[in-house]
């Protein structure tokens, strides 16, 4: 990467007040608002039993091609820039705030990056406390002992250190107090933006300097999707809109040239819409991006050739797919208006809202903790989770259950309209 290209790279982490959400056009905002309004009015049922009719000629990508073109995000690839940003932040606040706070919306990969950074640097990784340690101060001694010593420490997720119950607030309250007074030494705390927002209401006197990952705008999303498509595939993929062929991701050769040299074809607003809808959260955008990709029939044949080749390693495997022309392949993207997104039930449903809110506040919970934090019975929790899972709004998670990346924007919007506290990102 040249120096110029490095300069062009957007900042990975920024101060909270420098964070900005990708903006959409006025037309798109209006269209989305009207679409949401009409959908809500016309929605007679939620979770219909009949399968969706796919009338499109183009089919979704095969699993194999999805894995090649849109592999899961590897947050460690940006670790160097991430670590540099944290180092300079720690230097800046070393005198007044030995503990750095990194607040991020879900699906930004901050927890993974912090854990990797911690391992790379040989720092202490603070494990989340057990339930009994959260509720009883006298049982938390073992957890507090992790902070002893002079080695810097990393607490990757603050959301896992509390429960929204009258006795579940003590640990974080003590932790924040100790961090403010400098008792804990040098460390880094990662926090879900939902947890942080809740605690900033509970403790309005909290005034820590906070670092946050910058939202992905359309340009950064395009660059990221292009890079992802090339990690496992040597062939460059040209992503274009199915309806008019306009560019969705500008090809690499054009991306590095000046605007005057750009190809004559139009550039689609798909990525702008995606960046705005996903609120610049990379994994949310990635989840929708995967579902938006389509393939042509001949691509299926090529895929079969590759599949056969990988199975028998015969001569056919060396054949180049027909769709590869001049060293690149076409990936087709459906228009934003055709993207299918999860929805929530019409009208209000307090149990569903409580469940979703609790999952976001705690960065995922199991059934037992969901009962405690929402006040719902075990049966109600089970029934709600079943409905939400069918609607692709929640999925099983390392800590039990969590919202899906694709469902996150709809859930956030739903909670906001229902009057619940939402994060500031």
């Amino acid at each position, binding site marked *: 990467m040249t120096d110029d290209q490095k300069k062009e790279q957007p900042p990975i982490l920024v101060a909270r007040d420098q964070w900005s959400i990708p903006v959409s056009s006025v037309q798109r905002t209006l269209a989305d608002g009207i679409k949401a309004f009409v959908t*809500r*009015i016309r*929605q007679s049922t939620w979770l219909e039993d009949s399968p969706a009719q796919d009338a499109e000629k183009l089919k979704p990508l095969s699993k194999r091609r999805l894995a090649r073109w849109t592999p899961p995000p590897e947050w460690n690839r940006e670790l160097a820039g991430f670590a540099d940003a944290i180092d300079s932040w720690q230097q800046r606040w070393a005198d007044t705030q030995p503990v750095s706070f990194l607040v991020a919306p879900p699906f930004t990969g901050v927890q993974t990056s912090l854990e990797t950074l911690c391992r790379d640097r040989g720092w202490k990784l603070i494990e989340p406390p057990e339930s009994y340690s959260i509720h009883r101060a006298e049982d938390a001694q073992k957890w507090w002992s992790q902070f002893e010593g002079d080695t810097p420490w990393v607490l990757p997720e603050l959301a896992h250190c509390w429960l*929204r*119950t*009258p*006795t*579940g*607030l003590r640990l974080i309250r003590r932790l924040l107090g100790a961090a403010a007074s400098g008792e804990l030494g040098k460390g880094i705390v990662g926090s879900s933006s939902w947890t942080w927002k*809740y605690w900033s*209401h*509970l403790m309005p006197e909290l005034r820590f300097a906070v670092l946050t990952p910058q939202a992905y705008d359309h340009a950064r999303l395009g660059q990221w999707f292009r890079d992802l498509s090339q990690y496992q595939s040597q062939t460059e993929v040209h992503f274009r809109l199915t309806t008019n062929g306009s560019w969705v991701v500008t090809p690499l050769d054009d991306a590095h040239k000046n605007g005057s040299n750009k190809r004559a074809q139009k550039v689609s607003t798909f990525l702008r819409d995606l960046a705005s809808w996903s609120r610049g959260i990379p994994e949310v955008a990635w989840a929708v991006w995967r579902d938006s990709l389509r393939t042509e029939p001949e691509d299926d044949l090529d895929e079969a050739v590759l599949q056969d080749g990988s199975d028998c390693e015969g001569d056919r495997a060396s054949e180049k797919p027909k769709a590869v022309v001049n060293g690149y392949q076409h990936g087709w993207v459906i228009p934003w208006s055709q993207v299918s997104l999860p929805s929530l039930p*019409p*009208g*209000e449903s*307090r149990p569903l*809202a*409580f469940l979703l*809110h*609790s999952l976001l506040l705690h960065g995922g919970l199991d059934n037992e903790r969901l009962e405690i*934090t*929402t*006040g719902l019975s075990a049966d109600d929790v089970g029934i709600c989770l079943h409905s939400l899972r069918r609607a692709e709004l929640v999925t099983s998670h390392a800590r039990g259950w969590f919202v899906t990346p694709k469902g996150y924007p709809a859930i956030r919007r739903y909670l906001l*309209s*229902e*009057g*619940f*506290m939402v994060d500031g990102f």
Partner: protein
Amino acid sequence: MGDLGLKDALDAITSGAIVDAAILIAVAWLFILGVQKILPGIASRFSGKPRLYILAAVPLLRLVIILGVIILIVPILLEPTFENLVAVFGALALALGFAFKDYANSLIAGIVTLYEMPYRPGDWIEVDGQYGEVRSIGTRAAVIVTPDDTAVVIPHGKLWSSLIANGNDGTGNLMCVAEFYLDPEHDAAEVKARLRDVAFTSPWTKTYQPVIVVLSERPWGTCYRLKAYPVDPRDQFQFISDLTIRGKAVLRQMNVRQVTAPVMAGET
């Protein structure tokens, strides 16, 4: 009346004009019925602010339709000269003044409510001891539905003479209060802090609104008032119940005794 020119004005009305006016009124009536049926139906699919905005559009649209019909009908029935208008509206005012005084009073108050907005659909109001949510605002009266699901019709004329208490005043923020009566022998600062946590940990609480605990000493003990906002005004009773349940559990854990007033003979 004839001196006012009313007879001349009415003589000029043709049967065709009456039919046209009747059709216009019927169409307007259908429109109003449609608005009153469809918009609340749409509103029921939303909650929070969108619901309130849609409900608030009902009386406004009705007023617009009524004014539109009047503007259209008057030229159809009468030649809109100054004399004719004075004659007709003067006679109308007299008739309303004597025969339908209270009705006209409420009609005018209904128009006043549209711009003064002492209550809007979705507001929780108390008028003459009746507390409930404003479900609709009609031309003459507003209908509130009490927590026990009883519809109470409140003539707009009450606006002139009664005190109207509005809990949320067009917003989604309605403060609720849960009260706890405790034996005076306890750590008041600790109880105050724990009750605040009780409100913050209720899933019904709108945490971005203030949560306040106030206490006052009484002859029989200490009264704590836990004030907070539910996520939606309609949740207020569930919210207060939840705060009370959680609060009692916490107080029990703290071994703080709640006090009860002795029941006197004859008290209900």
